[in-house]
């Protein structure tokens, strides 16, 4: 490639760079700009520079920390359960059984439903007056208020688990199928029991895949919004107010866009760290293979 080609190449990049600047660069820059201002949609004539005040304000903002805590509980609870269930399902589906493709297709089904519909579905299924699940439980003498103050966040976790365990299964199944078969046969001959093989071979060999799957699911779980929006709207009280829903509420219901932007940037920082970790793991995984 000579110098002229390279110059041409740079010119050809320009339209794309322009587009990216327009649809990504500008919004991010503008969000950063308003996060340093007192920027309220209801008082656009009073916009003024406040420096880091919005960020500093978050430190003492109990609603913000409540939302952060709820999100952390949601993410860790959901992803942990999804990992355990997903691994169990992947191990079950990994062995050859008759009709295994049908099995796999059925298991994967929930992840093809749009999350807002899943939220609406469960809102009805778990509703304490009309829901079929509480009704069935009541018939055997169990009374559970799924969206009451104690259980609401846990119920949202269960809904997430229902919808996204299949994705975890899919990742782990692909990981299992990519593992070489010979070391497992060697271990069987070497005297390892089924559990020992799982503990000392399957788990460590699957570790990079597990890490990647967990990170991808975490990234996704941080963005939880639809279930909250469709079912609890953050309630009861602030029991299910997650960070994204809180940002939405402050920004679009209270019109305090400056504060909302500042919160969004704190979320972005967390997500950025996760993404960097993810790429690091994926690269190491390639080096492994």
């Amino acid at each position: 490639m000579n110098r002229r080609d390279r110059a041409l190449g740079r010119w050809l990049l320009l339209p794309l760079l322009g587009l990216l600047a327009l649809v990504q660069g500008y919004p991010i820059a503008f969000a950063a700009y308003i996060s340093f201002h007192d920027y309220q949609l209801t008082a656009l004539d009073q916009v003024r520079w406040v420096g880091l005040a919005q960020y500093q304000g978050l430190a003492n903002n109990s609603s913000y920390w409540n939302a952060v805590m709820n999100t952390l509980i949601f993410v860790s609870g959901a992803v942990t359960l999804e990992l355990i269930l997903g691994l169990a399902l992947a191990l079950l589906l990994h062995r050859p059984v008759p009709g295994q493709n049908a099995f796999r297709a059925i298991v994967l089904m929930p992840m093809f439903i749009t999350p807002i519909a899943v939220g609406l579905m469960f809102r009805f299924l778990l509703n304490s007056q009309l829901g079929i699940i509480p009704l069935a439980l009541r018939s055997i003498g169990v009374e559970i208020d799924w969206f009451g103050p104690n259980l609401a966040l846990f119920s949202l976790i269960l809904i997430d688990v229902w919808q996204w365990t299949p994705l975890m299964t899919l990742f782990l199944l692909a990981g299992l199928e990519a593992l070489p078969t010979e070391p497992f046969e060697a271990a069987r001959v070497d005297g390892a029991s089924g559990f020992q093989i799982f503990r000392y071979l399957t788990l460590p060999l699957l570790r990079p895949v597990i890490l990647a799957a967990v990170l991808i699911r975490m990234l996704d779980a941080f963005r939880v919004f639809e279930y909250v929006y469709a079912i609890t709207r953050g309630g009861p009280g602030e029991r299910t107010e997650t960070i994204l829903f809180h940002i939405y509420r402050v920004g679009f219901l209270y019109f305090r866009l400056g504060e909302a932007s500042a919160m969004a940037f704190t979320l972005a920082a967390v997500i950025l760290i996760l993404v960097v970790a993810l790429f690091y793991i994926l690269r190491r995984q390639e080096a492994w293979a």
Partner: protein
Amino acid sequence: MASVTFEHVTKKFENVIAVKDLTLHIPDGEFLVLVGPSGCGKTTTLRLLAGLEEVTHGRIYIGDRDVTDIPPKDRNVAMVFQSYALYPHMNVYDNIAFGLRMRKVPKLEIERRVLEAARMLEIEHILYRRPRELSGGQRQRVAVARAIVRDPAVFLFDEPLSNLDAKLRVQTRAELIKLHQRLGTTFVYVTHDQVEAMTMGTRIAVMKDGVLQQVDTPQNIYERPDNLFVAGFIGSPPMNFFEARLMPEGESLWVDTGAFRVPVPPDRVPIYRSYVGRRVIFGLRPEHIYDPDFSPPLNHPAEVQARVDVKELMGSEIHLHLVADRQTFVARVDPRTRASVGKTIRLLFDMDHMHLFDAETERAIR
């Protein structure tokens, strides 16, 4: 240490019969080589013995114990895989120690045995490396160390040398023979390489299409093959075959291939007489065909004329590819031969080493 017995063992995969009615006894301490072309069922046989495949019919015994329905971990066998099958996330030490740890052997005992095995295979200096940092030859040694550290009743080898380069293969071959002598344990060794089979085995079992063809010492397999397949499979270059008929002439008997006629040695005439007039296959190994100028004294030589088609210099010998009428064959002759490509030359067949097979059953006529 233990013997191994297969009793009428059959293995079916879906519609394919991989091993068919195999009956084979391997005495304690023997180095048995299972050899055959790919897909002949030799690896399946080994995996059946390891317990990695379940038999469809028949029984397998290790020593006096019926292991047919016993899982691999309880069979007390150790296996070296073709791909070595090292545990990629463990270092060499942990790879070797794995089997002992799974059996809850005390830690000090494990250390003693791992170091001993490592010393025996000269891999002490790489104990803390991961498999991916090792060369093919080193991995192979680790795989062998992992097997011997367990002190099993039977060692199983599945083409362990096929991933090594030629030089290392020859060296490792010798080391495995020494290892067998030193341990005195039963070895069952699978290979498609007839040179490995000939050099390593106490006995060789030749398989084809899931059927055991012949089990015998390397020498007997070579000198007295039971059938056409064994005769053609063992030996390099392979035995020459000629479609022929047996023709009587007074007291004597002649092999007539259409291209040439050679006399049957008198001591064999009574054995072959019943095949007079029937279709047979005449076999003679390339090393039993001589350039008359460099031939040792032969008891029953037969002269044949043939044209030299290709001449391959191998260093210590020359392979002549010859054409007589429509028959082609190979001779391994003295490197000083004056035969040149395109010329028709005289050759001597050493008829004392002739083989004769029934053309229909392909079995040796004896």
